[in-house]
């Protein structure tokens, strides 16, 4: 801890002076207080608002406040709320979207307007949680502006724990009990008062103005000893060494079902967790849908709608969801952010209505052993995520349920995308839609959309001149450069041909730089084939086209069967070949297996994955698949990097 003049001792009866200093500049002090018999975090007007003479008794599924008869203010270790309630509020307006009478679309982001806060009584685990949220919400390419503004304007006054609650395991997670960084001031409570240290220049200025005196060596030693006792009291219920790998090795453990029998999938653990960040957007519309307010609210991977896409749910069972939560918190978070997601505050243990204890579950599912290999680095896709307005030039049906839209952007940067990228389409009153770009034209963006729900149906029903909002292009593209000088086999199933068409465009633009190029295209029926008017042009450009349908129609004398039949006689082992596959997941699995048999190694086969996307920029958490955010790390992945995840149920 950084303190120019060393630790200061503030007598208990002068604590009010600290609060006065914190109030300066119109700051609101937020800290623990007892309201209606419950411990909450709320605005504190004075010292009397602090939980004087209260202690917590916590055990799995149970929380009680017990009077101590003493005068300590920080004996309650924590309650249901964490600072997340104030820096990442449960409901936060994001912006307004309007469609005017002339069909023009306008979007107005809600500018951050953070209250000036002083967070008082923040524990070491909570500081660690804030640091984690800094990394997740403000440390990547896309930043949550509201969070950042709130964090930057807040003063943080930590309280070092001098007692542990029964569930605490910060020592195991390496996040406490000592307060090391991220604070402006730290207080350690002794019987007579507080040992105060500064953790920042702002903190030093505050310490200088406190009515205290230098702390004696005995007081400093007492404070250190009390904190050390907290560490000793915890033991090491969670062995963090190698935990990530141990847990990921157990994706098929029967224990997941055993926990699922107890788990209510009620989302309480994710709500009380100080690092859980998954959100969803709720749309609040006026009766005509002309003015729509988008509000970001806390969501949870335990909810039904979280992993749902048109056609099903990627995590239908409770066991899938519990596994997602535990493996995210204790394994894939490490891959995503370089740290564990858990800080050991034990809120999930106390506030679980049926008292499920993650320490027990980790010990049962992934008992201690050995360390990890590094995951291969993923190339970053740096793309703009701003909202832009585009105008529909025209549209036409490719097939009875698929429509191609030609969109003219006002911002030319929208056209600078790469094959395989997608855009988030915004329509007033509708949830955001992730749509693949089927062609980047010289002056227009072309999307091929299948009407699969009300939002896509509304989109394809628009006429020329209509406006919609667009964010993108987003996501990791097909690695076309890997196919230069090599043979390329492209396998498309159904609408999967749409995100692959830009690859064909790239090949045709530089045909001599590629070897043999084969397109194997499977569709439901001959009438369901896309881009039939371009087939001749592809073949003329030297792309070998094989087509096959699930069902024939009268007059069809082409192939009938599954798309892998088009690959059966091929031998791709003679020359290095790259594979790009897109279609329903089951079709992709079968194709990858056949390609492997035919000589294309998994590291050279690329697939485009689909998951439930809401924000498209890796902040809402919905599209996670193991350690990956499909919107940001994908949607294109190599089969090699997906490993066992590819084709795994309920992931």
């Amino acid at each position, binding site marked *: 801890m950084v303190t120019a003049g060393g630790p200061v001792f503030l007598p208990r009866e002068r604590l009010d002076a600290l609060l006065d200093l914190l109030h300066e500049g119109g700051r609101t002090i937020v800290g623990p207080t007892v309201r*209606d018999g419950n411990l909450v975090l709320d605005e504190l007007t004075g010292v009397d608002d602090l939980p004087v003479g209260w202690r917590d008794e916590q055990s799995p599924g149970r*929380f009680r406040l017990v009077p101590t008869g003493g005068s300590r203010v920080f004996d309650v270790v924590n309650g*249901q709320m964490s600072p997340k309630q104030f820096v990442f509020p449960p409901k936060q307006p994001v912006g307004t979207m309007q469609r005017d009478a002339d069909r023009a679309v306008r979007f107005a982001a809600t500018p951050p307007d953070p209250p000036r806060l002083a967070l008082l009584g923040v524990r070491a685990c909570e500081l660690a949680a804030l640091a984690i949220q800094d990394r997740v919400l403000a440390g990547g390419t896309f930043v949550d502006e509201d969070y950042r503004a709130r964090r930057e304007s807040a003063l943080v006054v930590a309280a070092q724990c001098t007692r542990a609650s029964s569930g605490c395991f910060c020592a195991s997670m390496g996040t406490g009990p000592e307060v090391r960084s991220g604070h402006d001031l730290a207080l350690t409570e002794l019987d007579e008062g507080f040992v105060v240290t500064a953790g920042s220049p702002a903190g030093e200025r505050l310490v200088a103005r406190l009515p205290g005196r230098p702390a004696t060596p005995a007081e400093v030693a007492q404070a250190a000893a009390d904190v050390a006792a907290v560490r000793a009291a915890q033991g090491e219920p969670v062995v963090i060494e190698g935990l990530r790998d141990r847990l990921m090795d157990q994706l098929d453990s029967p224990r997941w079902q055993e926990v699922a029998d107890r788990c209510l999938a009620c*989302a309480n653990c994710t*709500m009380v967790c100080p690092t859980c960040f998954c959100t969803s957007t709720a749309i609040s519309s006026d*009766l005509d849908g002309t003015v729509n307010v988008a509000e970001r609210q806390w969501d949870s991977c335990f*909810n*039904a709608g979280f992993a749902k896409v048109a056609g099903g749910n990627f995590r239908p069972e409770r066991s899938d969801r519990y596994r997602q939560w535990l493996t995210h918190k204790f394994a894939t978070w490490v891959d995503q952010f370089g740290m564990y997601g858990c800080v050991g505050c034990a809120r999930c243990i106390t506030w679980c209505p049926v008292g499920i204890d993650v320490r027990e579950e980790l010990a049962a599912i992934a008992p201690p052993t050995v360390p990890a290999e590094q995951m291969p680095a993923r190339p970053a896709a740096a793309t703009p995520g701003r909202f832009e307005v585009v105008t529909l030039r025209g549209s036409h049906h490719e097939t009875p349920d698929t429509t191609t839209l030609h969109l003219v952007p006002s911002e030319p940067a929208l056209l600078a995308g790469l094959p395989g990228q997608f855009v988030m389409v915004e329509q007033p009153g*509708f949830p955001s839609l992730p749509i693949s770009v089927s062609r980047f034209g010289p002056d227009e963006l072309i999307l091929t959309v299948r009407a699969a729900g009300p939002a896509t149906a509304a989109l394809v029903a628009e006429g020329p001149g209509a406006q919609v909002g667009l964010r993108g292009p987003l996501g990791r593209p097909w690695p076309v450069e890997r196919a230069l000088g090599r043979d390329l086999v492209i396998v498309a199933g159904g609408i999967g041909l749409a995100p692959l068409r830009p690859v064909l465009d790239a090949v045709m633009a530089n045909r001599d730089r590629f070897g043999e190029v084969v397109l194997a295209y499977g569709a439901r029926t001959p009438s369901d084939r896309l881009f039939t008017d371009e087939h001749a042009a592809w073949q003329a450009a030297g792309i070998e086209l094989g087509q096959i349908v699930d069902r024939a129609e009268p007059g069809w004398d082409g192939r009938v069967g599954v798309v892998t039949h088009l690959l059966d006689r091929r031998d791709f082992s003679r020359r290095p070949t790259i594979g790009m596959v897109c279609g329903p997941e089951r079709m992709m699995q079968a194709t990858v297996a056949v390609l492997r048999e035919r000589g294309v190694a998994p590291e050279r086969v690329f697939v485009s994955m689909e998951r439930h996307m809401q924000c498209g920029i890796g902040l809402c958490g919905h599209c996670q698949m193991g350690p990956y955010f499909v919107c940001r790390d994908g949607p294109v992945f190599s089969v090699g990097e997906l490993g066992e995840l590819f084709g795994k149920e309920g992931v």
Partner: protein
Amino acid sequence: MATPRVGVVKMASCDGCQLTLLDLEDELLALGERFELVEFPEATSRRSDGPYDVLLVEGSISTPEQAEQIVELRARAKLLVTIGACATAGGIQALRNWGDEPAWRAAVYPDAELIESLAHATPIHEYVKVDAELRGCPIDPGQLLELLTALRVGRRPQLPDEAVCLECKRLGRVCVLVAGGAPCLGPLTQTGCGALCPGYARACYACFGPREQANVASLGRWLEAERSGPGVDRLFAGFTGWAPPFRERAGRAMSGFGTAGAEASVPADGSDGVDDER
């Protein structure tokens, strides 16, 4: 867009859910301009036998006449939306499903044969396909407004199938179950009410009915460990007791109910308040 023709009809119910539409005082005029209420006996004498673009149906099917009527109404409605616990789960009247209905009828009415009643009062979806549900007893005005707005805009209505717990946590309400020892069914119940009862330090009694993944077995076991046995079964025998996830436990509470001479298995203390320790 053409003004949708809206009908509001009731089966066996208290009318409270229909009233929620009339309670939308601030929006009523605007609603009136955008929807044509062609049939709504509680509000207007204007009548129509259909066709309806949207038909809101309140109440459970409790008589043979209603059973026929709902099939006819379904044929005349493009979208049929059930509103309230009676229509979606059977309601409080479904508790008679465990009883001896003919025996009661005979005990209560002098000319019992004049009363036509089905042995079971059941939700609408047991008779006809339902396009959407608004849960609750009564339904939530905000959810009703969202349904009507979604109809206008053309989107799916945002009616999340998640636990009441999320709403409590978002509102900063401390859990009455964990911190108060109240036998709250919130974790099993579909949200929509804004966590009304926990907001008054009361346990949720599941008037919105069971949500997807309602793990009755687990919470039931937990509550039994904290409180005595029969009390827990009674918690499920409420407004949505007939809903399949709750039915078994509700049935145990209702066993022997209404049978002459049998002792009720309902405990006399009727306790379901906050932990006595506090």
